[in-house]
């Protein structure tokens, strides 16, 4: 069965030529990918990231933006590698979200 990301040759509409300036958070996602895969760290491989992107459910793959897919894949890869635990990441995300509430 064809995997959802493997889309070469499928029908599709016109190519939308509009482009967006990358937001800072998106550039930071890209930076994380570069830094973590660098030879001096080797905490993830691009191939692991791709596998995790490809494993997203089809509706999520389509709905998520490019860098949303990548941050999801970076998190999953680092969890798989044991760089941190799900509990650590979950607590830190909750803390980040709580900071927004504080005036």
């Amino acid at each position, binding site marked *: 069965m*064809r995997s959802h990301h493997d889309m070469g040759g499928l029908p599709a509409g016109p190519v939308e030529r509009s482009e967006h300036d990358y937001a800072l958070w998106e550039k930071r996602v890209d930076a994380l990918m570069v830094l973590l895969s660098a030879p001096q760290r080797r905490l993830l491989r691009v*191939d692991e990231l*791709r*596998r995790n992107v490809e494993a997203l459910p089809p509706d999520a793959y389509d709905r998520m933006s490019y860098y949303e897919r990548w941050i999801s894949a970076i998190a999953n890869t680092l969890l798989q590698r044991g760089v941190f635990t799900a509990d650590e990441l979950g607590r830190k995300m909750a803390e980040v979200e709580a900071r927004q509430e504080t005036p």
Partner: protein
Amino acid sequence: MSGAPEALAATFAPGARVKVRRAAPPGHLRTPWYIRGQVGEVERLCGAFANPEELAYNRPGVPRQPLYRVRFRQRELWPDYRGAAQDTIEIEIYQHWLEPAP
């Protein structure tokens, strides 16, 4: 492990006719669906590279696989191809996805 090759020997020469295997294992594959089962011609050997299917699971992916660029005729790939007869497509394909074509 002494004696184990670091890279597999290349079995196809430029110009060889090759067929892309049909297979659909789970995991991370770099052979696109649309090219499986198709026949093309080796354009060049790129060298030997660690297998991305293994790298995707943080395994070393050795021995390194020969990687080829294979050329296909668009008219043979797509029954409804409306471009020119001489249009082609070239794709990088790892040796373990290729077999000799009749």
